[in-house]
């Protein structure tokens, strides 16, 4: 086993497990991309390909009983938090993931957190949203409610560089963290490609939420290497500038994590390979069970637009 990230055994996650989860998400999002392109997923798919360190880091810090409110791009967070790839792929096939509006789930997270506090429970809400959603006025309303009602919520802004198809610096979602700070929330801005950085910052904020009652805010800077949205029958494959893609591919969170483990001699290469292969196989199996094809990238467009509940047609 790899070294523990923290000393407290009850909430520690091993580096190897962290790596395994990231590999699982990578395979999951790649499968989803292939399935979407081959026309077998209904609706639009908002992928978090390349955002694995952020997804695992945010969710690994949660305690049992905590509530996760992911955005429509947050299916990966649910898989990271334990949703099976089968269930995840089924859900993907229904379209309309999670929430219909980018920020509509934020006040729901506040209400659930308020209920927990009033019931004397220690559970909190993690509300994940994009930097595009951060432009929505309901974020500001939700921040205020959470402060005023002392609701234990971690607002997690996943800034993946684009709001829709517009580069984030030309938009205003990146200002949300200042609004949060202005309202008195403890805030952190972290490198979302660095899994342990995300985990440690998240864990510190969650501790603070639990001890001082009230919300906190984290922004993770990351990048989605898939198009903003993928759907069957449309040419949503907007091309990102290749220098930009190259820049972020060089900061690939999986590869980065892997080289650190190897460099620090915390894991052997074969171990990591085995973990990654097992994760990929798990997702491939799930895709076969749910969508009935060994290779989800095989182009069987529109022959199976909906997932089966009873398994594949083998």
């Amino acid at each position, binding site marked *: 086993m790899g070294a523990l990230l923290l000393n407290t055994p009850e909430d520690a996650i091993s580096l190897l497990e962290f790596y395994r989860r990231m590999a699982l998400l990578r395979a999951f999002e790649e499968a989803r991309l292939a399935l979407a392109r081959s026309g077998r997923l209904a609706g639009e798919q908002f992928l978090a390909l390349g955002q694995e360190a952020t997804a695992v880091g945010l969710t690994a810090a949660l305690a049992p009983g905590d509530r996760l409110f992911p955005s429509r791009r947050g299916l990966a967070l649910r898989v990271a938090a334990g949703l099976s790839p089968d269930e995840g792929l089924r859900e993907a096939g229904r379209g309309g993931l999670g929430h*219909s509006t980018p920020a509509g789930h934020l006040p*729901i997270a*506040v*209400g*659930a957190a*308020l209920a927990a506090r009033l019931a004397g429970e220690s559970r909190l809400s993690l509300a994940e949203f994009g930097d595009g959603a951060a432009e929505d*006025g309901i974020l500001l309303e*939700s921040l205020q409610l959470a402060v*005023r009602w002392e609701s234990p919520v971690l607002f997690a802004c996943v800034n993946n560089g684009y709001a829709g198809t517009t580069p984030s610096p030309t938009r205003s979602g990146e200002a949300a963290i200042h609004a949060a700070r202005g309202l008195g929330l403890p805030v952190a801005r972290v490198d979302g490609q660095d899994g342990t950085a995300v985990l440690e910052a998240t864990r510190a904020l969650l501790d603070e939420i639990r001890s001082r009652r009230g919300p906190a805010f984290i922004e993770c800077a990351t990048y989605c290497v898939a198009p903003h949205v993928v759907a069957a029958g449309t040419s949503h494959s907007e091309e990102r500038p290749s220098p930009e893609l190259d820049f972020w591919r060089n900061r690939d969170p999986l590869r980065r994590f892997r080289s650190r483990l190897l460099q620090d001699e915390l894991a052997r290469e074969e171990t990591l390979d085995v973990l990654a292969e097992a994760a990929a196989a798990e997702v491939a199996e799930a895709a076969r069970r749910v969508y009935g094809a060994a290779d989800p990238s095989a182009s069987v467009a529109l022959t199976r637009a909906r997932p089966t509940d009873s398994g594949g047609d083998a």
Partner: protein
Amino acid sequence: MNRPDYAGAVRRALQDAVERRPELLLLQAGDDGAATGGATFRAEGCAAVAGAALGLAVAGRQSLVTLGPPVAALAALQRLAPELEKARPVSWIIRVLLDGTGPAVGQFAGLGVGRVLAPATPADAEALLGRAVGEEGAWLYLEERRLHPCQEKAPHPATGRPGAICRLAGSDVTLIAAGAMLVAALRAARVLSGRGIEAEVIDLRLIAPLDLETLSRSLYRTHRALVIDEGDTPLGPSVAAALTEAAFDELDAPIGVVRVAPGTASLAETLERAVPAIVTQACWLLGRPSNVAG
């Protein structure tokens, strides 16, 4: 004899709710006029407050949420509809204060927020809110500000049973209405009576789901019906369609919809708009002259 007005009846029902159900959280967006006060959790934005109420419900905590003004309440509830679809079943009471200038009763009928109550009298304002508070489940309570000063005129045994009731018996035509439109329907029935037309007035009280049994029973007597719909909302056509399907063999004429122009906070002006429209259309339905001036 000091009879309570509609606003007082709501206030009493809310006080009673707090005493009977101390665990019921009171949330409020916007201003609820003189009716209550006393909400524990208040903020301005309807969307966030409604969302928080859903979050509470998801976590198993029931709340009574007052939303206003009505245009913001409607937008908030529409925005929440997809989330609500996934969260079902939820237990909550959404109270919206209509004021005549924003969206009317019928626009709240098809939101899927819960069973929709639209009380028209003080006794009902109290009894129906009491019913919603006393029962698990999702409720949308449409309170009518224009009726706040109204006192109970014709005492009717208040019943908490959510369903339609017959407010006035008649044999020629059924007028179907809820909220402020009930007052207009009762006035129109008086005018029609002067012309020899005996109108029956049904108070919907529950606008979703519809109490088709009570409505059909009225058609067995009158064989003709008009739905009074303030604004151009889905309520009129959906009542007409459902009732046509339920009691087609009883009908001597297509069920009509009286569209009353919305947009005034004055009950007097509302009645000035609604009563002649109802009278004219009822006369037309029965093939009688409709020169209202007489």
